[in-house]
């Protein structure tokens, strides 16, 4: 019989600041920060003992230095940090933004007829081989290393940028990047370091920013104000629910909207760890709205995802998941407004999956301003409360048609594996797929003889989601790319990597929770591996680019002779239901 261990392994319980943002932050740095606005004005007494102001600054911030022309953030990138200028200045490039080449990206160009035909012979090249002319990086920008070894991209011709673009100057004491960090939206501007010498920035990761806002009213008010001014009005202008409002009414709504975030910002890391240990389980997801509660307001999902569920037996059954742009609770509030004598409570529970950023339009604002503006045909149907909630709940869910065609097991499979994030997921019908690998060969022939996916992945019933980039709605792979090599293509928002500016830092490779990015050793035209000064092979991050440059769309989908493979937006259950029942 195997011997039992005599003493159980004892480990310290993991703490929030086990991994500080930067190991280089010293007590002196913190002392210095506490003498600078806005930290100088913050009252340390308002912070709880578990998260004192001093520890937040020591663990959730880091000081960075940038030299003139170095890009601090790029328009369209995703980031999890806000910045405070400690010394020096930074310049914001207003519209029109910098061209793709200056942002480390590829100019979006569809292949012409000749380039398409040229693949007949270029497909014979060694896998992932690049001509030497492409190793030098993008024109107009250069790359250099910062003191902390991070790769930095700098503009080579700053005067030209100043001549050709409208810019604004920001000086020490100013914040930027806080809205994108808190709402997980793409950065709206490109910002670079200005002036002679170096500028110093304080980078605050989102957890720190969240706590600072929580315990310091001034900062919260400041960021709320910026949010309402910069982000909210444009959002309300674009949302169909508010399109009948006058400008004045829209401002009234904006001034009374509340915003909130739920869940963990770095959910992808947790999910990836769980997936790697094979213990993925739907964790306790924070409740945003509870079934049976009074409807306090319409919840508008701005970023992230929510799981819609309803009580079923002793538990809760998933009915749907919803993403950005969806209004939750509108049906109940509209019902109560039209039927004040027969009010209903919330019919479903909404939970945050991963990370969710949302806006809440209070019921009073809905009833007084928004609902009266909507034409009768745009109002949702009245709610018919269910007599026996445990019996046949699916019949009362608005997306009944989808539910009829997608089994509860498939819905649970898609939700627990976070596949709703994919806007172009590779789905395979196992009842049609003959495992011929024509899709893999087509991908290889289209991409330098290196197939960019694995025809295998998690499966439920006859649905398999293959290991290919899903072009996520929430692309966590794009967080932290130092050169902007991974970016959204301007054609239709596909996530692509520019091999020319990829510096093989592995940030995207490590971030992708689905393991859809691979590091591949590159070769020269002769097929020899390219080595660096230390004689280690140079690599690049590669992934499915949805054949963005090819005419006709994804080669994998077009190459399947049995119609077994499709690229589907899994955030749209209608599309999936239609495909499964084709």
């Amino acid at each position: 019989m195997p011997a039992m261990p005599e003493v159980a392994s004892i480990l310290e319980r993991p703490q929030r600041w086990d991994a500080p943002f930067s190991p280089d932050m010293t007590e002196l740095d913190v002392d210095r920060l506490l003498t600078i606005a806005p930290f100088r004005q913050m009252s340390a007494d308002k912070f709880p003992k578990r998260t004192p102001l001093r520890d937040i600054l020591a663990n959730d911030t880091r000081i960075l230095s940038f030299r003139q022309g170095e890009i601090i953030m790029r328009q369209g990138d995703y980031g999890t940090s806000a910045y405070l200028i400690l010394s020096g200045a930074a310049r914001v490039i207003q519209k029109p933004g910098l061209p793709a080449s200056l942002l480390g990206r590829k100019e979006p160009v569809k292949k012409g007829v000749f380039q398409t035909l040229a693949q007949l012979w270029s497909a014979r090249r060694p896998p992932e081989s690049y001509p030497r002319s492409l190793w030098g990086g993008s024109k107009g920008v250069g790359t250099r290393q910062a003191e902390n070894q991070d790769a930095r991209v700098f503009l080579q011709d700053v005067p030209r940028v100043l001549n050709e673009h409208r810019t604004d100057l920001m000086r020490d004491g100013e914040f930027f990047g806080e809205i994108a960090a808190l709402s997980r939206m793409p950065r709206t501007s490109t910002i670079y370091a200005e002036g002679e010498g170096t500028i110093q920035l304080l980078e605050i990761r989102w957890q720190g920013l969240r706590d600072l806002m929580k315990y310091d009213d001034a900062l919260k008010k400041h960021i709320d104000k910026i949010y309402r001014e910069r982000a909210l009005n444009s959002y309300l202008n674009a949302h169909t629910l508010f399109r009948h409002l006058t400008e004045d009414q829209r401002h009234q709504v904006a001034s009374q909207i509340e915003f909130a975030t739920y869940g963990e910002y770095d959910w992808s890391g947790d999910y990836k760890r769980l997936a790697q240990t094979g213990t993925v389980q739907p964790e306790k997801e924070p409740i945003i709205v509870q079934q049976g509660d009074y409807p306090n307001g319409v919840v508008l999902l701005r970023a992230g995802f929510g799981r819609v569920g309803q009580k079923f037996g002793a538990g809760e059954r998933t009915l749907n998941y919803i993403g950005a742009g969806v209004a939750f609770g509108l049906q109940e509030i509209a019902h109560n407004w039209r039927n004040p004598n027969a009010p209903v409570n919330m019919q479903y529970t909404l939970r945050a999956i991963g990370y969710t950023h949302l806006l809440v339009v209070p019921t009073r604002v809905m009833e007084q301003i928004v609902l009266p503006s909507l034409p009768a045909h745009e109002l949702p149907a009245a709610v018919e409360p269910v007599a026996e909630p445990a019996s046949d709940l699916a019949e009362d869910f608005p997306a009944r048609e989808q539910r009829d065609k997608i089994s509860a097991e498939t819905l649970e499979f898609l939700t627990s594996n976070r596949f709703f994030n994919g806007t172009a997921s590779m789905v395979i019908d196992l009842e049609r797929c003959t495992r011929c690998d024509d899709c893999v060969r087509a991908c290889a022939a289209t991409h330098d003889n290196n197939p960019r996916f694995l025809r295998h992945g998690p499966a439920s019933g006859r649905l398999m989601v293959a290991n290919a980039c899903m072009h996520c709605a929430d692309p966590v792979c794009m967080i932290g790319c130092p050169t902007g090599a991974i970016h959204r293509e301007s054609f239709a928002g596909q996530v692509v990597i520019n091999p020319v500016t990829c510096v093989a830092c592995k940030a995207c490779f490590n971030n992708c929770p689905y393991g859809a990015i691979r590091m591949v050793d590159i070769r020269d035209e002769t097929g020899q591996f390219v080595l660096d000064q230390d004689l280690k092979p140079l690599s690049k991050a590669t992934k499915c680019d949805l054949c963005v440059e090819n005419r006709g769309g994804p080669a994998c989908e077009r190459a399947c002779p049995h119609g077994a493979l499709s690229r589907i937006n899994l955030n749209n259950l209608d599309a999936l239901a239609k495909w499964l029942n084709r």
Partner: protein
Amino acid sequence: MVEPMKRFRKQFWRGTVVFVLASWLALELHQAWQARLPNETFITGWVLFGCMLLLTLLNARKKLPFLPLLRAETWLQIHIYGGFFTVILFLIHLHFRVPHGGFDLTLTALFGIVTISGIVGLIFSRVLPRRLKVRGGEVLFEKIPAIRHSLKRQAENLVLGNQAASPVLAEFYARRLAGFFAGPENFWLHLLLESRQPINELLADMTDLRRLLTETDAKVLEQLMDLARQKDGLDYHYSLQKTLKMWLFVHLPFTYGLMLFALWHIVVVFAFSGGAQ
């Protein structure tokens, strides 16, 4: 409300209707012109050869996935229904008679093999994926040898490794399981009969061993049985997936042979007839 027809069903009916109409038209034309056109066989021969060339374009399309040349699914539909139509044309070309002579018989045999292998392949590609899905345990074909090797190693460690205790298990492994884990087993039984008889017999024999084992060894036996079930599932996938790949190794070479013979047939016909005059 009438539910709209589903895509695959629509595809089937569209192909079938086009095939029936085209076949009817070909037979009618053949009937009408047979007596009037002296070179009717030349015409049917050229149309037949043209159709055969069209069918080979599916493979060419597969080799050029980066060109925007319709979806492979569309090409396969053309290939399937065009293939059935080509059979009708072939019969018309033969005037519904069995040909004479070694060359013509060989050509006909090649055509028959290509046609039958194509139909068998079509049936395989519609039936076997469903069976694979029902069985579960999806695995990449290329990974099967590595997984098989891993199962073998695990089984060997259980009965022959450092922790192994029972000579009964070791003897049984050497006698019954070593061969089973060494390579693919029961290929045809899995493919044709979907038979579970061999694995059930093996598991029954293993269950019979229990009375000879200590409690600890019985647990090892349970693990061995689990490995045997996994190996059987792997063999099932190997059998069906290999068949899905291998039928093309009959269909394609015979197609090349058929096209070469058909070309030679054309040359010979023109050499001895002076062409269609």
